[in-house]
């Protein structure tokens, strides 16, 4: 054993992370230094992960500060597709705004916005095939919107109303849309991550061509499911894209409580020998390009990719949250990567393909569209604390494919007791 005689040891101390800013603090992000747009090399899609261990420590950006798309990651999209991305992001934001207000008006119990993070879902979905399977967290409503899923259907879920295909069973925003390649959202963080890997493994085992894509927040990377997913993805070289949306916050805890003080989230990929990219998550073209690269990689059996999207959660965690209690309001304003919608708008304007007027017109069109959808959805009811839209019997359905005797009995008992009590 080591010699302990006469030792004079220093007291240990426990390090507890602390974010730079708290409510009321003046915010400066000057110490966040990012590489120039266009400065990061783009490996070939079948490159060995061992040859790109630097990528988790840089930041892939396509749009430069003037809104020009530059460098090897520039996906050189036709203007129509860029406009589609812009429209998707704007529609997502308009949808969020309306549903947030609906919750505040007491029309539902809960809502979650993705303000400032619209590029993460919209940029990605544009680079995927329609039949690739998405395993999202609760903050990628943009995937449904980007796949032109009916807003009314989404709203009905939020309202738990008669039009809700999920029979009012799930918390608002926990969509499920198999037809849109959108997996049922879970309230349990990160559980979808190994499921996505399993889906991808199944696709590979069956010689299919479809890949799987999943998203978790940076806070959720701490969950064991994250490790399970990365391990299985690495072992079986699953055709899967694993996205980490680093929006800096997990409810009231900043990214430091998930390990963000010590390294990047993209670096997690290194631990598994998985190709890992770190990208400007507020740059829709960077999101597109990274997703396209990773998708191509997966499709050619070259293995999984982990992508960290560096972005910022501009609004509250959910309608149950008040961020002014734990972070400075200035953070969102000063976040150095800007707003993804604004940035893509400037890019299009720079191309001479867009102007303020067309932007305003589109904004108005989308707002109307969301309003109309909202009205239609509300015709089918909204959530009420005391009324019931769905019949009580529906509660007992779908526990199993076939209703077993004990559940049937319970359903009957409920009906009978209510009859007996005259309610």
């Amino acid at each position, binding site marked *: 054993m080591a010699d302990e005689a006469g030792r004079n040891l220093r007291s240990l101390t426990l390090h507890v992370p602390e974010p730079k800013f708290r409510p009321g603090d003046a915010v400066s992000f000057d110490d966040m230094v990012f590489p120039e747009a266009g400065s990061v090399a783009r490996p070939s899609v079948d490159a060995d992960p061992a040859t790109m261990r630097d990528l988790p420590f840089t930041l892939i950006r396509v749009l430069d500060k003037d809104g020009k798309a530059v460098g090897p990651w520039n996906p050189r999209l036709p203007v129509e597709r860029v406009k589609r991305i812009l429209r998707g992001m704007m529609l997502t934001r308009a949808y969020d705004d309306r549903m947030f207000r609906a919750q505040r008006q007491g029309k539902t119990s809960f809502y979650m916005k993705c303000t400032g993070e619209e590029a993460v879902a919209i940029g990605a979905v544009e680079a995927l095939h329609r039949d690739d399977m998405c395993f999202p967290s609760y903050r990628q409503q943009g995937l449904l919107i980007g796949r032109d899923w009916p807003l009314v259907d989404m709203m009905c879920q939020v309202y738990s109303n008669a039009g809700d295909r999920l029979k009012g*069973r*799930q*918390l608002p925003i926990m969509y499920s849309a198999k037809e849109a390649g959108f997996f049922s959202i879970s*309230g349990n963080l990160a559980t979808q991550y190994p499921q996505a890997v399993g889906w991808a493994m199944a696709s590979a085992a069956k010689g299919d061509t479809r890949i799987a894509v999943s998203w978790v927040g940076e806070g959720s990377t701490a969950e064991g499911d994250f490790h399970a997913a990365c391990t299985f993805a690495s072992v079986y070289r699953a055709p899967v894209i694993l996205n980490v949306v680093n929006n800096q916050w997990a409810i*009231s*805890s900043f990214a430091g*409580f998930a390990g963000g003080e010590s390294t990047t989230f993209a670096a997690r990929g290194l631990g598994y020998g998985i190709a890992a990219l770190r990208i400007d998550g507020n740059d829709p073209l960077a999101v597109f390009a990274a997703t396209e690269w990773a998708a191509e990689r997966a499709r050619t059996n070259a293995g999984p990719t982990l992508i960290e999207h560096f972005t910022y959660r501009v609004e509250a965690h959910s309608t149950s949250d008040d961020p002014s209690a734990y972070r400075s309001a200035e953070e969102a304003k000063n976040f150095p990567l800007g707003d993804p919608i604004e940035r893509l708008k400037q890019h299009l304007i720079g191309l001479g393909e867009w102007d303020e007027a067309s932007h305003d017109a589109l904004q108005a069109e989308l707002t109307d569209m969301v309003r109309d959808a909202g009205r239609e959805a509300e015709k089918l009811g909204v959530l009420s604390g005391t009324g019931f839209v769905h019949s009580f019997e529906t509660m007992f359905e779908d526990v199993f494919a076939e209703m077993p005797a*004990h559940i049937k009995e319970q359903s009957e008992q409920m009906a009978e007791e209510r009859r007996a009590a005259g309610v």
Partner: protein
Amino acid sequence: MTTMNMIQAINSAMDVAMERDSGVMVMGEDVGYFGGVFRATAGLQKKYGKTRVFDAPINECGIIGVAVGMAAYGLRPVPEIQFADYIYPGMDQLISEAARLRYRSAGEFTCPITVRSPFGGGIFGGQTHSQSPEGIFTHVAGLKTVIPSNPYDAKGLLIAAIEDPDPVIFFEPKRIYNGPFDGHYDRPVQPWSKHASSEVPEGHYTVPLGKAAVVREGEAVTILSYGTMVHVALGVVAENGIDAEVIDLRTLLPLDIETIAASVEKTGRCVIVHEATRTSGFGAELSAQVQERCFHVLEAPIERVTGWDTPYPHSLEWAYFPGPVRLGEALKRVMKD
């Protein structure tokens, strides 16, 4: 004495425990600077510092596992699991480690941790913010399971749990954090301040683990309940003018079967009520034990009024919740026999 709601009482319990024992540590998701999503740990970090009250990574396995290690070191961690629905990733550390440590090391290492977690429904939280998994923990040899129903008990039981030398799961019925709830979801909520049990001493006291409370004496039937359902039971009994004896278990394990059996010996009838799913819920164990002990005095079958054998549904939560209608009908049936 001062007036506290349940959150304040729970907060005060941790405050008192931390004040008295520098080994008491509070950790969990969002419990530090912010003070917890239900504010149960508000102010503690400020008072006791970041090394005793801190946020944790979102990893329930780690939260429990790290707490086990801290306990093995000699501390008394009080980890919070943000919702009981999220305790499952930490199950292995609870069942295989925390619960077994004393036994497998023959007392060499022990695990005095208290895992706090809000549980139960009635807040439109959907299936992942509403579950009542307490029954599972009562099946685990080596764990104690405690559930308070009011501010006074919440504080006293939580202090007792923290001071207990073994691991305790402390489930907090979130529906009644701010006021007792009689199950009439369509009526205005009463604040705790109107309830006698909101008179809570500011300092140290304990409510012993393993002791039930007879919250209403009666002769006609025994109602076994805990957490939110205590108030539903009291409401139904009052409304229907039933002379029921209502027992608040307070601790599910170890169970105060003496008090329960004495009551059933007196009344000859027993109704068990809990919000958890029926099959293999704790009501099953209660029913079995009451039947084992009181078989010869029972005048009617023991009834269980529980959540249905379905997940907790969002919009139909009041159809799921075992409220006054169902308890009332069960009481009628049991008293008719």
